[in-house]
């Protein structure tokens, strides 16, 4: 007596079958959808406020691109992403990544996945991709709604960059897309941190909160001049470097540096999560 069915699918097909299931689970969950809706509301509200106050509210405040929104709807995307970066996006990432393993542990589903069996490395990978997909969905929902609301309220035109130069609408849109992609990639380090916390506990809320706290503490440390030596390595230090894409000649060194720091956080916390999860006793 042995397996009734021979392996019916290739390893890759088998991987994607579980990955699809995971994406449906993450993106179909009501709590997560509400989060995405919340993020999507930011550009809408911001756009409406700017539309009715016509510039005066934010004129002269904050980074230059905030003041440009009323002149060009494309800037609503950038302004919205900027507003969400300090807290709303870290919160979203914390919820998605902190829940990854701890959520399954607390529901009692982890032991059943592992006895199916799903290899622990494979499961961690599937969970990481699920959390990253949610991070991408979060940034994308801000961007898409920002673009639509911006276009509807202010129209889209050739883009006047921060340096004062003007580029065509197509080139400007590409730069805004680059900003959004950079912000998305800037969040990967935090996803890895959350994933690691998620392997430490059976209490998802604990892992979520710890992840958000890491982002906030990193932001606080970044403002303390005495710690300037460690600033470049901080998780959040390079988040605002997306502004490089709004200069006529982006400094690719700055952009590359920001991405390298994220890659380092991903490597370190990915490895920690892996070594923890592949050796831990599952008693949940």
């Amino acid at each position, binding site marked *: *007596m*042995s*397996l*009734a*069915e021979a*392996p*019916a*699918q290739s*390893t890759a097909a*088998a991987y994607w*079958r*579980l990955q*699809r*299931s995971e994406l449906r*689970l993450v993106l179909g*969950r*009501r709590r997560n959808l509400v989060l995405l809706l919340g993020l999507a509301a930011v550009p809408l509200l911001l756009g409406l406020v700017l539309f009715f106050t016509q510039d005066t509210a934010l004129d002269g405040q904050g980074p230059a691109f905030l003041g440009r929104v009323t002149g060009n709807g494309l800037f609503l995307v950038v302004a919205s992403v900027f507003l969400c970066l300090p807290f709303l996006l870290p919160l979203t990432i914390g919820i998605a990544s902190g829940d990854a393993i701890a959520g399954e542990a607390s*529901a*009692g*589903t*982890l*032991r*059943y*996945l*592992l*006895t*199916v*069996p*799903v*290899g622990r490395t494979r499961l961690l990978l599937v969970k990481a991709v699920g959390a990253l997909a949610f991070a991408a969905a979060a940034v994308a929902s801000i961007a898409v709604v920002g673009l639509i609301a911006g276009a509807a309220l202010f129209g889209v035109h050739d883009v006047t960059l921060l340096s004062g130069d003007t580029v065509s609408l197509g080139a400007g849109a590409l730069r805004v897309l680059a900003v959004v992609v950079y912000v998305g990639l800037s969040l990967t380090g935090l996803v890895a941190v959350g994933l690691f916390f998620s392997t430490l506990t059976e209490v998802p809320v604990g892992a979520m909160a710890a992840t958000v706290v890491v982002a906030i503490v990193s932001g606080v440390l970044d403002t303390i001049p005495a710690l300037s030596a460690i600033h470049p390595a901080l998780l959040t230090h390079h988040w605002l470097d997306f502004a490089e894409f709004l200069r006529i000649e982006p400094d690719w060194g700055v952009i590359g540096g920001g991405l390298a720091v994220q890659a380092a956080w991903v490597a370190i916390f990915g490895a920690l999560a892996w070594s923890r999860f592949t*050796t831990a*006793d*599952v*008693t949940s």
Partner: protein
Amino acid sequence: MTAPATVVPAVTSPVTAGTAVRTQGLTKRFRSGQVAVDGIDLLVPRGAVYGFLGPNGSGKTTTIRMILGLVRPTSGQAWLLDSPNPADVLPRVGALVEGPGFHPYLTGRANLARLDAADQTSDARTADRRASEALERVGLLAAEGKPYRQYSLGMKQRLGLAAALLRRRDLLVLDEPTNGLDPQGTREVRLLIRELAQAGTTVLVSSHLLGEIEQVCTHIGIMSRGRLLLQGPRDVIDSRGVARVAVTVAPGHVATAAGVLRVLGLDVSIEELTLGAELGTLAPARIPEALVHAGVDVTGFEVRRPSLEQVFVELTGEGFDVAR
């Protein structure tokens, strides 16, 4: 802990058709220092229905977690379907461990679909049909579309069983499958186990209630405080401990009857019209025979085998309660 592990040979036939589960000196000491499982040698022959019995906290679930590769043994080793590496054989093993666990906001069927999607060796094309069969088998087809969080405890337990039955298994490991079920549900689980066993599936089933599954077991292992006190075929276990005989006679025959029993070498205790004695090695049939021969009017005769619980109490000197 002074009670020595009393282990009777577990395999009756000399031909071993392989074992479904075997452990050697399996031990788990948790980081808290608690020794949950203390050097046990489990032996579940293929084709057996193995009742893994013991009070709450005796180490059954921890043992099962080690067998399934969820928890790493502190020392000792476990073989599942003769493989030292559980991952290789787990597709052939259905498991229910420490209660069901599902996503509360997914329906019963969606939860099964997720588990099936996780199985690298299962056929996606037959997933729906197999899920329906499993749901049907546990009587949950009518509630398949409800979110799991709306299930009653018994329905949740049934869904757990359905997950274990998603495909044909060589071994089912069922940890307390009757928890939360009403007497009718418990009977159904027993019936299910019997059916599966008849179809050739080996079943390792644990319970902290001795009586609930005892009847369907071909083999029994008894745990206490992390130790396997006793294991072996059911009949061998049953013949342990002392059987008692109770004879009831008509008024006026008590003295004669007592005399006859004493002649047979029994140590008789009398309570009104009932005479009781430990049976020892005497064949029970000789008792009514001798009594009738002596002209005693026998109105009742009963041989009482000790229950598993009594065997347990004899072995440990303690009751079948939470030990720690």
